[in-house]
């Protein structure tokens, strides 16, 4: 069964001065898939996310989301269409509490105009209480009840990370873009994340594209994997094939495929190839 495209990226070109960050990158994510985006540091993964969400404007190439050309839409319009993302260095607002952060993420669902809220028109009070209830529900799902009223800036990294994820879900998305969801988690927690992601996908009918280095998680969670190197697509395929792909191993470990005739265990962390983070 071929499912329709949720995200279709066509020949993205992104240049910063003399640095070619993305070089004709094309990829597709079908509805309901969990797709991994891997590659060494500096391969252009996060830049790719920034192009998808509209934070960077690529020099050429198109982004279709949910059957619509969003290439020239500003970030907040793409978010309203159902594109949510988490951040490598966390997308929580430190001065707000966990509850307020999740309510902030519900911004586009408030259902009243900003002016109506400021004037305190009758409907807005009720909606605020509803938003608070919705936020409490999401917070409970992620087990953040105990810290619901703490400022996120004062919380440990792992909890803020979970809060970031809760916020992405609170935007009521069709698609999640996760930037290294397992970083900072213990190996067991990372594997647990695979179950969570699959459960979310099934329960909320989500499509997920994630940047991740943690290989067991990618192998466990993803239906399909794209490998990026120097802004270009190195290869793509199901995780099992990618794991054995000689060029992928070479890209991660440096050197050429010929030098490593015996593929080692699937490389655990990107090493060597550090071209600076784009």
């Amino acid at each position: 069964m071929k499912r329709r495209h949720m995200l279709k990226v066509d020949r993205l070109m992104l240049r910063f001065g003399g640095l070619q960050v993305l070089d004709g990158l094309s990829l597709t994510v079908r509805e309901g898939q969990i797709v991994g985006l891997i590659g060494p540091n500096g391969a252009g993964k996060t830049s790719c996310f920034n192009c998808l969400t509209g934070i960077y404007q690529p020099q050429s190439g198109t982004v279709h989301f949910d059957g619509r050309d969003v290439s020239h839409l500003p970030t907040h319009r793409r978010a309203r269409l159902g594109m949510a993302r988490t951040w490598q260095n966390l997308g929580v607002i430190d001065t707000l509490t966990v509850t307020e952060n999740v309510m902030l993420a519900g911004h586009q669902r408030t259902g009243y105009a900003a002016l109506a809220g400021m004037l305190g028109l009758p409907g807005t009070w009720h909606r605020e209480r509803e938003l608070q209830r919705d936020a409490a529900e999401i917070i409970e799902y992620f087990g953040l009840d105990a810290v619901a009223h703490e400022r996120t800036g004062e919380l440990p990294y792992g909890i803020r990370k979970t809060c970031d994820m809760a916020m992405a879900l609170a935007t009521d998305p069709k698609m999640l873009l996760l930037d290294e969801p397992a970083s900072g988690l213990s190996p067991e927690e990372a594997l647990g994340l695979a179950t969570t992601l699959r459960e979310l996908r099934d329960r909320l009918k989500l499509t997920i594209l994630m940047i991740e280095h943690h290989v067991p998680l990618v192998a466990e969670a993803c239906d399909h994997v794209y490998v990026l190197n120097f802004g270009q697509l190195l290869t793509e395929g199901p995780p099992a094939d990618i794991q054995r792909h000689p060029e992928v191993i070479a890209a991660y470990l440096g050197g050429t495929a010929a030098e490593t005739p015996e593929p080692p265990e699937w490389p655990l962390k990107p090493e060597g190839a550090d071209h600076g983070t784009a």
Partner: protein
Amino acid sequence: MATATMVLTRVKVQRRFGLALRVTAVIALLALAALPLLLGGDVWAQRISRAAIYAVIGLSINTLTGHAGQISLGHQAFVGIGAFAAAFTASRLGAPLGFGLAAAAAAGALTAAVIGLVALRVTGLYLALVTLAFGLTAETTIFNWREFTGGGAGALAPRPTLLASDHAFALLCLGVLALVLYLDWRLVSTKTGRALTALRNNERIAATLGVNTTGYKLAAFSLSGLIAGLAGGLFAHWNQIVQAMDFEFQVALVWVLMTVVGGLRSRLGVILASALFALLPLTLPNFLSSLPWQPPFLNEAVYHVLPPFIVVVMLLIVLRCFPGGFGQLLRPATRWLSTGSARTPRTGTGGRT
């Protein structure tokens, strides 16, 4: 079982008693604040009007700088344009006061929206420079436009008979202050407050959560300009004459200082600091020169230089010791008044830093 009920009842009784105590405290404080208006005669009525107008200006700057994180060193232009618009509608068109105040607010909002359009492109130091340049330009061009402002002679802004007395006018100013306070409270408690907090901290995160960052920045400028224009309109009728020299650059600086000393995003702090800054130059020199014992080498001329000096010292103390301003110092008290417990910092406060 019985003990549990007893404990529960005691907690309930304590809570009810605590609530009563807090309500009494609020009423007592309000009564104390109303005393000068009731007993002080016309002089104090005028002073209270001035303090209320300053507080409205402080809340205007708080909207822009506190909530949206944008700086303005040209606020005298917004207030001034509001004042001249009110004076123009009152003296030339003979329109009623409400209409004049609406015109003042609209003029302030419009001007600020134009500056906001520029501000979308620049941040930080450059925004400070743009607003500064705008304020200075407005002083020399718009405020000297003879047909609109009456040139050096100024424009008259007579009060209607209903508000002719200083007491009635003070009540009007306090009413406007209450209105602006309400707006600020609802702003902080609804989606606008959260969106602006996100915008202030990280525009990219705000945008990916669906916040129209451009729109909210413009809205913050317009709202700040609207409140500033309203304050200008009140100022025009308070003084009953508006002159370009009332809106020189240094007053804009003082307004920014009083907002920072009061504490960004703290309504009570901003009001107290604004009132202090409004009244200090009026009351302190007279008070000091009326003391029976005068220290040697000091005279009235020195007393008149004291208020700005005190202001600067206060700013330094605030920046060094409590960056949250008066608001930070008052936090335990306000927390007790609003929640009944001085300790727990657990309730969300709309992202006060």
